[in-house]
């Protein structure tokens, strides 16, 4: 597991009362009732602070944030482009 994934899992399980073990990588977070509009905004804030990047409004979509796998993929993408 990458460090990014570890951080994301830890944040979600701590703030959204889910067991890390229960957190399936590809399961929809909103569908599980874990994330609602409040939660998504908190998640974005965490990502911005922890990974030192700004998430533009147009990126706050289910494709990028609705599951652990998607968040990790989004972050990998953003951080890779940042390095160049």
């Amino acid at each position, binding site marked *: 597991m990458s460090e990014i994934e570890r951080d994301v899992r830890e944040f979600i399980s701590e703030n959204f009362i889910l067991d890390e073990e229960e957190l399936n990588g590809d399961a929809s977070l909103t*569908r599980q009732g874990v994330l609602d509009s409040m939660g998504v905004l908190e998640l974005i804030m965490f990502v911005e602070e922890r990974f030192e990047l700004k998430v533009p409004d147009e990126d706050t979509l289910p494709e990028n944030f609705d599951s652990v796998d998607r968040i990790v993929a989004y972050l990998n993408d953003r951080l890779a482009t940042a390095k160049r």
Partner: protein
Amino acid sequence: MLPRCPRLLHDSLRIAAEEHPDKLAVITDDQRVSYRELYQQARRLARGLQERGVQRGDHVAIFLENSVETVVAVYGTLIAGAAFMVVNPQTKADKLAYVLSDAAAVALLAEGHLSKVVAEATEQAPSLRTVLTRGPLTSGSLTPSTAREPATEWLDLDSFLAEHPPEPRDPGVVPIDLAALIYTSGSTGNPKGVMLSHQNMVFTQASLVEYLRLSSDDRILNVLPLAFDYGLYQAIMAVHLAATLVLESSFSFPAKVIKRVNQEAVTVFPGVPTVFATLLSLHRDRPQWMPSVRRYTNTAAHLPDDHVPGLWQMSPDALVFKMYGLTECKRVCYLEPELVQVKPSSVGKAIPGTETFVLDDDGNPVPPGTTGTLWVRGPHVMMGYLNLPEATAHMLKPGRYPGERMLCTHDLFRSDDDGFLYFVGRSDDIIKSRGEKVAPVEVENVLASIPGVKEAAVVGVPDELLGQAVRAYVVLDQGTEMSERELRRACMARLENYMVPRNVVFLSELPKTGSGKVRKKDLLEAEQR
């Protein structure tokens, strides 16, 4: 020749399909469905339900996320002659079992990914004969319980619809028959099924579109659960008008919703204060622009006065409607949008075709400025709560004419000299968080049932974003140790998300009166110190 004027709730769908067959009825992420298609699917479902033995007067439960299928299920059930009940997909097994058995539901449409919850609940719902699932089932193989005869049969919804021709039998429903059961939380812990007839709902749909000044050109957004009457009526109004419903499953991704509003040129944006607070905080960060919106509507809790200018910045052509209502009659009153800054804290006057009264405890009208209880009179008032004659008698009292019943809201109101209504407060202890009703006793019961918890008291505390946040005060059994997180997680498994306490305060004992009742006022006051 069939009447042009709807008499039964689903007549509106037939009329829309006849007059505007190719018009888009429902738009979701992955589907765009015309009125003709919507009507045909509903008729297929109706025929299928009838083949499965659903009869006039039966109750069909809908346990689906906001989707085209949910709208199909509502109208299909009605066409079959049954009454529908939409259940929030976040509902857990115990409560699902309760409503299914309370309503003696004979059929259930459910998300496949909720099959675990459904299987557990249906163990306790002997009346259920048919479960129609949408999408793949989560758990491995599910065998219907063979413990009782006849067994509940699980079928795939898509195949079921394809198998049946759109040719239902006429069940012979009349307007005073039951159309819907809408379950609502009550202070007593168990949800209560509000019974609404076709007549109630046909009247209400017309009154709403009249005061909201809507037409068939409107494109109505719905981000609210269809299990909630406010969300449900967005679909009902759209069909009644032959307008277009832009259906989202939630407001979880606000930026996505805004994008959709612009893509689909949404004209009507219904919300609750939490939705508007979220929108406005995004707008403060980076200006949002939704020029097509010409109506914002708000209910469930008070919309702060300072939110309105922000809404106008995003949508300069928008009329903002502040409204108040309760499930027991759907809506009570609304403020004409031209007055939204003239009478800022008011929720206006009775919706068309209805009246309201502010009365004292003896039933006499109180003068302007004096607080009294709000009473409602009109064709929108529910028939009662299912199976609950006492709770019904608490809310409905004899009116002016024989057989007439007036609704007592049990909410405190006052009016001004011009007759405009102002909400003063609830007389029960229901918490309104994110626009949803949370009954403290329901949460307290769940907490108390957690091993290690001795007793609990739940209160609402003011919260800028949520309206009220749910807070639990918990006393643990001697020698037990439990974290806030563990408790909240245990609640998550038994309650809908919005009912889970935001935070938990551990106490060694709860402050009580001489007779043993918890002094919730003391808990709240201790917080403020």
